[in-house]
């Protein structure tokens, strides 16, 4: 086995969920007929209980566009998309920067 690229791209929880849905994971309650392995079903079950089950690609693209002005790191944006914080205290552990100036942006990011 040869690792050509350890990081060939990052996926949001929604994209992984969409991958399993495209293989028929959501349409097979028996978890046998669809081309999805039992271990993949466990990941699917976890992601179905997260906010990713209510997201669409348009919502994620709009959020990324709206966040361009805040100059957030990709990892931070990915984390915000995955957990969808609904208050400033929930976004606090995601964004480490404690600059007084940046605190003003917290509420506007949550509103986005």
């Amino acid at each position, binding site marked *: 086995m*040869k*690792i050509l690229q350890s990081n060939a791209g990052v*996926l*949001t929880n929604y994209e992984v969920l969409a991958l399993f849905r495209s293989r028929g994971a959501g349409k097979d309650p028996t978890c046998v007929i669809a081309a999805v392995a039992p271990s993949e079903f466990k990941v699917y079950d976890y992601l179905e209980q997260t906010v990713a089950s209510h997201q669409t690609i348009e919502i994620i693209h709009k959020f990324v566009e709206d966040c361009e002005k805040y100059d957030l790191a990709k990892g931070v944006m990915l984390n915000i998309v995955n*957990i969808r914080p609904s208050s400033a205290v929930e976004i*606090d552990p995601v964004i480490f920067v404690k600059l007084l100036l940046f605190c003003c942006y917290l509420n506007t990011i949550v509103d986005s």
Partner: protein
Amino acid sequence: MFVMSEIEHTLRLPPHLLNLPLNVAIKGELESLFLDKVIDKLGLCVSVYDILSIDGGFIFPGDGASTYTARFRLVMFRPYVGEVISARLKESTKNGLRLSLGFFGDIYVLVPLMPNPYHTEPDPEHKNGIKWVWEYMGENYPIDWTDEIRFRVHSVSYPPIPIEQGIDSEQNDSEEKDLRQKDLKPFAPMVITGSLDADGLGPTAWWV
């Protein structure tokens, strides 16, 4: 939380799969090789994303199967340090918490990374269990079994595979040896250490 990794691997395609289309047979073999396995420094393989190329197909002398070299991408579970993830409580002991995502259960929150200040209470519903309680502004906030718990990834480690588990050559007493083997946890090839010691972390019910 999920990352794609590009891998090249040479694999032998057993003859009983020759009736299947080549990409289907190769994908099946790759899934049996990599799915739900931990690759050192890459993480837990969750799915085969796609196959980029298949080369070869040579049959070596004395072998009935053909050998292919495939380039493909795998979806790996590999959270980065500092990422905030939601999980469920799996174990609560005096050493800390063990959390689980369902498909991955080796997430540990050790005592120094628990929310401070805290105290512990015995848990009557679980044998040898401890209930952790965060103290804040005179109120007690317990960590319950039904809560969704948010933790921040403190570190991701890949312990080396042990040569022999639980066997000590100097241990002569067989009863003591049996007790030690029962206390040992099964080997975990990937361990995530989490932290709850920050605002917004811990059970989501604390912050609603």
